[in-house]
């Protein structure tokens, strides 16, 4: 089984969010970066579990500049066989999807996995875009993925429950919580990662279809009102009369 895992680099979860260049770019000053958690904990780990039990290989692909190599190498340390970085700024979801689709088109992957969304741009777009560009089925927000031969059975998150479905390889799937458990790379994995191939591939030409006008930091201005724990009737009154939520 040949599996491709698409990963993106994101700020770590407690990073301070600020913008620069007239509020048109994310300010990377002082920010630590990680692999998008949905890509790392769920997509990559599940891909490795599947190839560990049924045989096969896991390739990581990322669209980004050389600064992304550290994050890609962590994926190799966790267990991917090799990686490809398409050398371009990931300037929009469709741009990224077109790069990955162009790379994957003739590689014959059985399964292409992404995380359900990235924690920075929250797009939830790239997986579906890759599927459309490659004319493949797409299952989004899958919380489980089992494969028997060429048949996969998945659970997909729907409102208030789960949908169980089956599909033949090849297909694209975006991974949600529940698909796997986070793996911490061990020393051996980290050492072996140094010898694993990380190919740099040029980007194809593609346009961004959306332009950033401006970013803004969300100002949290909740002025808290403390309520006496003995006076819950007062809290109820405020919720009803003051904020009108009940």
């Amino acid at each position, binding site marked *: 089984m040949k599996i491709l895992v698409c990963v993106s680099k994101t700020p770590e*979860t407690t990073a301070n969010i600020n913008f620069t260049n007239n509020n048109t770019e994310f300010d990377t000053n002082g920010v630590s970066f990680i692999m998008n958690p949905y890509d790392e*904990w769920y997509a990559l780990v599940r891909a490795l579990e599947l190839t560990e039990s049924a045989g096969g290989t896991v390739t990581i692909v990322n669209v980004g500049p050389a600064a992304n190599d550290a994050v890609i190498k962590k994926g190799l340390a966790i267990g991917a066989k090799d990686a490809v970085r398409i050398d371009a700024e990931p300037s929009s*979801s*469709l741009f990224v*999807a077109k790069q990955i689709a162009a790379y994957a088109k003739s590689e014959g992957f059985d399964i292409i996995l992404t995380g359900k969304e990235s*924690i*920075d741009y*929250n*797009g*939830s*777009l*790239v*997986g*579906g*875009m890759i*599927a*459309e560009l490659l004319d493949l*089925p*797409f*299952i989004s*927000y899958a*919380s489980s993925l089992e494969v028997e031969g060429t048949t996969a*059975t998945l659970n*997909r*998150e*729907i*409102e*208030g*429950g*789960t*949908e*169980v*479905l*089956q599909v*033949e390889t090849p297909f694209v799937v975006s991974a949600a*919580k529940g698909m796997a458990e986070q793996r911490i790379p061990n020393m051996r994995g980290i050492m072996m990662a140094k010898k694993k191939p990380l190919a740099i591939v040029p980007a194809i030409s593609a346009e961004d*279809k*959306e*332009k*950033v*006008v*401006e*970013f*803004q*930091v*969300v100002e949290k201005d*909740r002025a*808290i*009102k*403390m309520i006496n*724990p*003995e006076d*819950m009737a007062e*809290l*109820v009154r405020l*919720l*009803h009369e003051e*904020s009108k*939520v*009940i």
Partner: protein
Amino acid sequence: MVLVLADNSSGEFKKPALEVVTYGKKVADMLSCDCIALVIGSSNNPGVLGQYGANKVVTVEDDNLEKFDSQTYTSAIAQVAEKLDAKVIIVGHNSTGKSIVGRLAAKMDAGVISGAKALPSTSDGFIINKNVFSGKGVVSYSLDTDVKVISLMGNSIQPEKLGESVTAESITCEIPAPKTTVLERKTVSGTVPLPEAELVVSAGRGMGSPDNWGMIEEMADILGATTACSRPVADTGWRPHHEHVGQTGVAIRPNLYIAIGISGAIQHLAGVSSSKVIVVINKDSEAPFFKNADYGVVGDLFDVVPKLNIALKEFKAQNN
């Protein structure tokens, strides 16, 4: 023309479908054109969407559209959009929408916003906002492609009665056979799913044990709210995974979020900061959540929650 997908994959037009029709009508008004609601598959009284602002309702039925599949749905929407010359295509940012919004954008090589949180501004181009960085930021995007694709975040707009029922018209499309086979849909009936919930009662490690959740479920019952939890209690199996709200769980936008025994780590806040009103109950006055709340109660939740339940019951009794 603005084309909106009124999702009925659950078997009925729920609030998200009505939100999308209202939103689509308002966008259509801004662009001086019509709003057409598309219904895929069989439905009960699709013409009712006219009441929420659809100038027209079109339906597409086909054996290949009986169960949801991202390819068949995308094909149907794209064919209808082309037939009717749609310039803006809008879906809800729910499980259906998230499966097709990327496909549609790629198929039509269109500018796309997933999870739009408000109406666009069209006075100078087409500018539209969404949350980014898990709710810590907002971005304004400008779209100038011929066709634009939008998925609308739930609870961003309230459904409004903007028109009258209409007669639905059917359109025929060539739909390929789906490559996925849906085996079953399992839903927990009775509660509003978290992403759509307007009232949420949530609890965390302060509860001490999964056996103590009775009072949380009672509060949810009194309020007609949906229950949620913090990540640690989902990870230890005290509560089901789908209740976990936070940066790596579900992001919610209720009118009221009551957080009980939750300290308020940044990752948790990322999932709930879009709540209109936040109430925090915690025995630790230094809990970071108090810096992100509208109302705070410092006290032992085992005292406070039963008292709050009594007060809520009395309120409901007086106001019904």
